[in-house]
């Protein structure tokens, strides 16, 4: 990066915000996979859950096996609740429309690159990390 004066630039907020959101998504994935698979197999494994001598006597919650309720339904509801936080309070609004050609003409994108960053319109490049 020696040929271009980097001091004139700052990290693209869309990139910075998306990366931050990606980290949270990966953490959510690990947490919920752990909860769902862990709880389901801990409670629902056959030798623990089912008594062959009395098959109909199983632990039910709202008509479903208890492991389904605690290991699948509850985390599913929790994901929806977290989605409210994630989508409406955590995820940033970003200006994504900073392409060089707002209307997509049939232009070869390789040629579009001729629009070097230095020549780009600053108005178009403003990302709005609010």
């Amino acid at each position: 990066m020696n040929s271009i004066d980097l001091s004139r630039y700052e990290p693209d907020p869309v990139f910075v915000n998306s990366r931050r959101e990606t980290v949270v998504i990966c953490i959510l994935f690990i947490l919920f996979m752990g909860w769902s698979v862990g709880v389901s197999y801990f409670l629902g494994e056959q030798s623990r859950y089912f008594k062959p001598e009395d098959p109909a006597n199983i632990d039910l919650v709202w008509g479903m096996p208890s492991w389904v309720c605690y290991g699948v339904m509850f985390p599913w509801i929790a994901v929806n609740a977290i989605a409210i936080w994630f989508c409406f309070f955590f995820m940033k609004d970003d200006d994504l429309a900073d392409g060089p050609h707002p209307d997509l003409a049939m232009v070869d994108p390789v040629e579009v690159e001729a629009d070097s960053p230095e020549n780009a319109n600053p108005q178009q490049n403003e990302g709005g990390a609010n």
Partner: protein
Amino acid sequence: MQHVSPLSAGPHFIFAAASDFSAIVAFSIYILLVFFLAILSNRYRQSNNKSFLAEYFLGSRTLGVWAFALTFAATSASGGSFMGFPSLVYTHGWVLAMWIAGYMLVPIVAIGLLGKRINQFSRKTDAITIPDMLRGRFQDPMIGVVATYFIVFFMVFNLVAQFKAGSKILQTLMSGIPFFDSTVLMISQVTNSLGLGLDPAYVLCLLVFGLVVVAYTTYGGFRAVVWTDVLQGFFMVAGVLFMLPVTIWAVGGMGEATRLMATMQPPIELSLEVTQADSKIPKNSWLHERVLHSGLPEDDFNHFPLQKRLFRVKQSGDFDPSERPYTISVIEIVDQNSEFIDSLPIFRKANGSLGLVQPVELQTEPQVGKYVSLPGFKKPQSNQAYLPIALAVSFFFFWTFSSAGQPSNMVRLMAFRDSKTLKRAIFTVCVYYSLIYFPIVMIFCCARVLMPGWETDSDRIMPEMAKFLTMMIEMPWLAGILVAAPFAAVMSTMDSFLLMISSSIVRDIYQKKYPDASAQRIKSVTYWTTIIVGIFAMLAAMNPPRYLQDLIIFTGGGLSTTFLAPMALSLYWKRMNASGAISGMVAGFLYHGLAYLVGTQLTGQFSAYYLAGFDPFVPGSIISLMTCIVVARLTQPPSDAIVIKFFYRKKKSN
């Protein structure tokens, strides 16, 4: 000595007759609606002075919340969600709640992980296809070519499979309708005279279904596909939300169903040798074994309580009157109760009995309780439990991250309007999937109790259940609307795939070869490409490869393994370059192919090799990721201009 009495093919024939007319009316209204949307979309395109290609293939990137959310959800939910998935729930019980649990995170991962950046990159590069975007991102025509070939390769197979799935659903819907049967007869005369050896009913359904999809997709383009996806999305959720309470009411409460399931065992597959059959025993016929005692009249059913063993015909076999015994494949319902058997109408043959029957294989170990506990029951062929914990983890990964890696989903991420739309859409799809997938598990667990014995033809459980429920509440016309749900699911996936293939051909192959082609010329090439690809897929589906469901899984997994890691690194890693991306794609593709090659060699049938119990997608994506990183590190870094264009912006003060 053992005798088997034939019971009728079960209650479904009665229901089929009652809901025939409604099905055809509902289907026709549905098709009319779809065409109406295609016409609207075409008018919209004519009246707006926007670039033809951007509008035709991407809706000019103006999708709002509902359009974006539902097109994403409907495209992801293919025929599998409404045919294959209910069939699996029916066959394996509550275990499928664990199997599908990963879907709780699909919207957040599949849309949130790459959404903003793909949308932004596609705007920066003016891309309307994925190869287009990669080409612009790396300033390298080679990566566009490689990506195009991978997409077209996998998508064509998948499209053929989807065509077959749709035609099969239509066939289920229409069978038994007089108008349909007479048309099939006409077609059979044509196919017989041509010596094609095709199933005429299937060919008719394929022609109707295929032409409808090709016509509205070609005429309406992306916007029509999105609008019909929205319509189809509503059909799907409405179908499920109607079925759920009616099913729970019909079964007498969810708890009652689960307790009954706990006492049930999976049916046992075996062969029967029938010594006195004078005609072919139809598929899905019920057979009941009775034990003869010496000195009692052989055909007097009244002397014998209906007990002992109950069978249902899975494959009716080749009947030859000169050859005895006649062998059929059946399942044995192990835990039938006499009340259930009494409810089966008896199909009385003239001679009353089928004669001596020998079960070829006998019952193995009992598997009570496996419908309600993990890891599910053992398949007789493999002796492995259905969902061991490694496979459950594997599915969690597969559903979430493979959805993120599907190019058909990525294209949708290029099309939404702004980040507000994205945020609302993630939440909308979260709620939407919750309303679809978990209720489907509940409905088809109940179906196992309400309609035992459909393991013979479990892909039909969704339409059969729709007929059963609507008859129960005496509203048979509703069945037509309910069966539109799986139909809508297949259509919404097919139209997107069709458009993806034609966009790749027009944008990434034709336009690269003829950069100076006029707008008018591009327009006609686009229309003709869509039509020709559609017709080609339809012809290929006339005689489709055998393992279709496996093929859908193969292509879906293959696309994700090939594209996920290179795409994610392209969006988030400044050091990524074209060599890294191409190598990552090739590595993912090769691992996926190799896993299937080894799996097929080991098992003798088309299947993947599960390294340490993991689906090929998991190790394949890791290998692809590592390859991307290593090759990118070893080769020339990207130019400053590229890095700045995609990772920086000018300071405001400047």
